């Protein structure tokens, strides 16, 4: 979906159309940009930018508070359209997905036709535009989908893969972030064809275990299938506070609530977690994480919160002002095995207010 949150807001409020709009938090309170309309992007406003910076770049910026419930319901509409075409839909986020349309419900022989029809269906149903990439594999499709935006459609037919690859810089490779890209560039590797020429051993010296993967991608090889039920590997939440937290009781409450959210999520997904991770960012932006793994895995809110709070004791939170807190659960597994009953099922001593 193109500038998804911002487009939804522009769709629902005519006054926002044609003006630079961002969805995100309050600029006076450390908000960040969650999505920027194409009008805003012209000023250099991007998502993840701090709202204060965004306003500096574009003083006329209109800031809209996010309404995730609305975005989620639009997202559900769009995914329902996908699933009418093929059950092989792998969601990447609320507004992005891989579809394997080799076989499709419409019986369309060409991927590009499926893409065109889907784009039209999305426009008819939601009034929003989407950009699509059609290619022989996930890696190429992902790059192609970003090629022309908004309302783009890029096709990399098998015969054109080679010329498409020739024009790509290493940044485009899946798994290459800014750091890795810098390392590669430091070795004179800026474009995809350079990755092909360097021996894999030398590449390993630069990017480690990523080398074989990059080699494959540079040749346009990507055998990953579209996985409709890719299991979640972790879940969590974090929050940047309007002003730094120093009160330990408040910090504990925040951690407890986030652990509660994680527990709810686990219950919804029928999962249990073995690992709890907390994240603390101090006022000077130094960030620490602390993790604790223990068997048996659990989704018991008391236990998860207890672990998270115990981890909090291993940080300097409170003694140092805290800007951000986060709690996440990892090492997830299904609850095929019976969940271990906690002692909290047992009767409690009648402490006041307990």
């Amino acid at each position, binding site marked *: 979906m193109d500038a998804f949150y911002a487009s939804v807001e522009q769709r629902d409020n005519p006054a926002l159309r044609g003006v630079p709009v961002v969805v995100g938090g309050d600029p006076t309170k450390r908000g960040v940009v969650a999505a920027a309309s194409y009008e805003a992007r012209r000023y250099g406003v991007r998502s993840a930018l701090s709202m204060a910076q965004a306003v500096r770049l574009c003083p006329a910026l209109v800031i809209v508070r996010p309404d995730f419930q609305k975005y989620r319901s639009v997202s559900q509409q769009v995914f329902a359209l996908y699933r009418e075409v093929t059950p092989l839909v792998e969601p990447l986020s609320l507004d992005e997905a891989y579809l394997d349309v080799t076989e499709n419900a419409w019986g369309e022989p060409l991927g590009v036709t499926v893409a065109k029809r889907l784009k039209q269906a999305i426009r008819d149903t939601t009034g929003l535009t989407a950009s699509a990439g059609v290619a022989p594999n996930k890696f190429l499709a992902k790059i192609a989908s970003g090629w022309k935006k908004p309302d783009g459609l890029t096709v990399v037919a098998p015969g054109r893969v080679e010329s498409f690859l020739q024009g790509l810089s290493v940044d485009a490779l899946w798994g290459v972030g800014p750091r890795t890209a810098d390392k590669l560039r430091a070795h004179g590797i800026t474009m995809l064809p350079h990755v092909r020429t360097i021996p894999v051993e030398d590449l390993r010296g630069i990017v480690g275990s990523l080398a074989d993967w990059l080699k494959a991608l540079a040749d346009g090889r990507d055998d990953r299938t579209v996985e409709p039920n890719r299991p979640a590997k972790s879940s969590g939440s974090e929050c940047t506070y309007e002003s730094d937290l120093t009160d*330990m009781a408040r910090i*504990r409450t925040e951690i*407890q609530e986030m*652990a509660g959210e994680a527990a709810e999520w686990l219950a919804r997904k029928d999962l249990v977690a073995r690992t709890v991770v907390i994240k603390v960012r101090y006022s000077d932006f130094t960030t620490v*994480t*602390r*993790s*604790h*793994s223990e068997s048996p895995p659990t989704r018991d*809110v*008391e*236990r998860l*919160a*207890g*672990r998270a*709070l*115990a981890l909090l*004791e*291993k940080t300097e939170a409170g*003694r140092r002002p805290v800007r951000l807190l986060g709690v996440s659960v990892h090492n997830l597994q299904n609850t095929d095995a019976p969940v271990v*009953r906690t*002692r*909290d099922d*047992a*009767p*409690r*001593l*009648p*402490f*006041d207010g*307990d």
Partner: protein
Amino acid sequence: MELVARKADLVRELQFFQQIVERKNTIPILANVLIEADGDSLTLLATDLEVALRSKCEASVTKSGSVTLPAKKLYEVVRALPESDVRLATEKSGQVVSVSAERFESHMPTLPREDFPSLPESGGGTVHTIKGSTLREMVAKTQFAITGEDTRYYLNGALFVLRPDSMTFVATDGHRLALVNAEREGGAKGGDEVKAILPRKTLSELSRLLSDGDIDVQYERGENHLFFQIGPRLLISRMIDGQFPAFEKVIPKSNDKRIEFEKDRLTSAVRRVAILSNERSRAVKLVLDKDKVEVTSSSPEFGDAREPLPVDYTGPALTICFNAQYVLDFLNVVESDVIALELKDEVSQAVLKPVGAEGYDYTYVIMPMRV
């Protein structure tokens, strides 16, 4: 740094650090022990940021200095050495420390001393002298009742109240509570209370450090930290801030039924009967009747068990049910030959107490399970 120390001294001290350093550690330096050599001794220091231990041992230092070494591996290596002198020396690079004895030689990487966290200093507060053996007993009688992981973080430790003439330890996991009061010899009546909630790890370190001999402990409560000087060793602990629950409220006052048990007979009976209890609830029932208490258990998958114990009891017939582990936890640490069970009915808190204990009061409150 370059020094020679006796193996026996080094092993004895290093052993105390094994539980301090973190097993599953996210900060590499916290797996290390900081060794500082100066004059005729070396100082050892390790921390997991919740507790820290500092200790000393004799050494002949030829070059003073400091290094940090992995606490576990260093201990394993030194322990395996012959009973002789051990030499520790920083190599020229400064990155590696050699540990050698007789013909054995090893090299271990050191992490920068600057990375080692700085620790709070004691001083300023009033220092109280506590009898080590009393402290050890109080810790032993309460530490098992601390909950492992509770959102009520103040339950993840024991409350320690020090008064001039007595001291109190209380711990609870919300289902049972252990309370011990002990006298302090020669203390005046009245005076201020010094209160602190001690983390669980601090209690287990205290019991380790106090395990041999009777030694006086110098205790100081700082602003955020507690200091226990135990002979040459100093244990520093974070304090859990928070309000410990009003424990007095759950200690029953109107338990009018009392049964005395021979401790060993009750312990064996509960242990045997509990084998066939429900694996999750671990419930055992005490079926009270005239001059008899029957300990029973049953579970759909394992079957059932019972063992009657003759007692003096003239009250009404009554059945009360406990988690066997909770009962055994108490029986395992109580010293007296006879213990008393005091209760009111099937659903109110029951109390277990030693009979004839001297110098201390020990009260163990358990919430019964529904029969």
